[in-house]
């Protein structure tokens, strides 16, 4: 063959070998690191009884906190919804902003057709026409908001809770565009003027203008053994049940076995951690 073709074949051959070698080498190094992480993870979960294999979430978690909302209880007691919202917003110094476009809400009551827009709304049953249910951040197992955040200001912690790091957020609002449930709010201006100094919760910071915020599954409460504020506001009604979805013996898992539940827009593949008994 002519010289040029020979040279081409030589170069092609060496590049292929180099490429394959590099990728396998790299894969081994990375794979080694990953299996080490997976090993410690499994050891941790094994302690809590039979570990349930994580579904398509990309971050392996030790626990997976979830919520079961029994909408029937919210219909029986019409004031429960407002109490739940007030408890959360009070606990976390969520400002009450009169201008609708600038509003901030972590949990709020809404109608069936807004909570489940992918469900049919024609000839809806009377209860769902009249009554409202609470919606909040679903703390998805495969959260698109975490995927798009350019600074990792929103991330999934070891308990499966999607957390906001207000110090790192640059306020680009990409997470707000990515969230398929509309759970996120932005501080369009300084929230302090809209908070009452006398009733502020001094143990929890407010946020500053220019950062995104949302429900945080009350991490500051759960880490000291308390229930989330919304759950506590429900008292004994068990209108909202909070627990570890990875623990098959937890109350929430038992209730999920006993009741038919639905989730918001499941076909999007986000694997929400919030379930509804409608």
């Amino acid at each position, binding site marked *: 063959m002519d010289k040029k073709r020979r040279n081409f074949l030589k170069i092609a051959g060496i590049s292929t070998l180099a490429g394959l070698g590099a990728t396998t080498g790299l894969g081994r190094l990375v794979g080694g690191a990953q299996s080490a992480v997976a090993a410690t993870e499994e050891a941790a979960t094994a302690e809590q009884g039979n570990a349930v294999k994580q579904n398509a979430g990309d971050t392996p978690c030790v626990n997976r906190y979830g919520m079961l909302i029994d909408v029937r209880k919210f219909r029986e007691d019409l004031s429960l919804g407002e109490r739940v919202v007030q408890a959360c917003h009070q606990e976390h*110094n969520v400002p009450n902003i009169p201008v609708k476009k600038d509003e901030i809400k972590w949990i709020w009551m809404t109608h069936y057709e807004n909570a489940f827009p992918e469900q049919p709304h024609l000839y809806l049953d009377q209860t769902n026409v009249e009554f409202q249910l609470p919606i909040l951040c679903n703390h998805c197992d495969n959260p698109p908001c975490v995927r798009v955040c350019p600074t990792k200001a929103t*991330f999934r*912690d*070891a*308990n499966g809770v999607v*957390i906001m*790091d*207000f*110090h790192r957020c640059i306020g680009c609002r990409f997470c707000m565009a990515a969230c398929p449930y509309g759970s996120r709010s932005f501080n369009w201006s*300084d929230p*302090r003027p809209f908070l009452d*100094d006398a009733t*502020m919760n*001094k*143990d929890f*910071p*407010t*946020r*500053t203008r220019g950062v995104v915020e949302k429900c945080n599954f009350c*991490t500051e409460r759960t*880490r000291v053994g308390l229930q989330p504020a919304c759950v506590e506001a429900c008292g004994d009604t068990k209108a909202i049940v909070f627990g570890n979805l990875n623990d098959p013996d937890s109350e929430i898992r038992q209730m999920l076995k006993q009741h038919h539940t639905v989730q918001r827009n499941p076909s999007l593949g986000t694997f929400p951690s919030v379930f509804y008994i409608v």
Partner: protein
Amino acid sequence: MYNGGKIITGLVIFVLLVTIPVWYNRGTTARSAPELVMPTNAKSCVLPAEEMRAKHMQLLNVWRDEVVRTGDTTSIVVEGKAYPKSLQLNCMECHTSKVNFCDKCHDYSSVTPYCWDCHIAPVE
């Protein structure tokens, strides 16, 4: 000197401007070192005073990342006492007055940390 008059005048103005920090506050109280109101309920802090003065912001950043991002809320143990890693729930328990403690040095060195935009300063 060609254009000597303008040059000398310009130089004098320049030197005056550049040495403003030296002469502007002469004789006023703004020059004196800040007097801090120390806490009465504790004798020692998480770190010695000199270290705190130099590094308190780094310390708070490390605590912040540990608590918020890693979820590690284990207390710091110093001389047998356990301290939570928190500005509001730990530091402000002893240094109860932002105005008489934090602001004194910050105002003197013209530093405006934005911690208080979010973290709630105690009402004075």
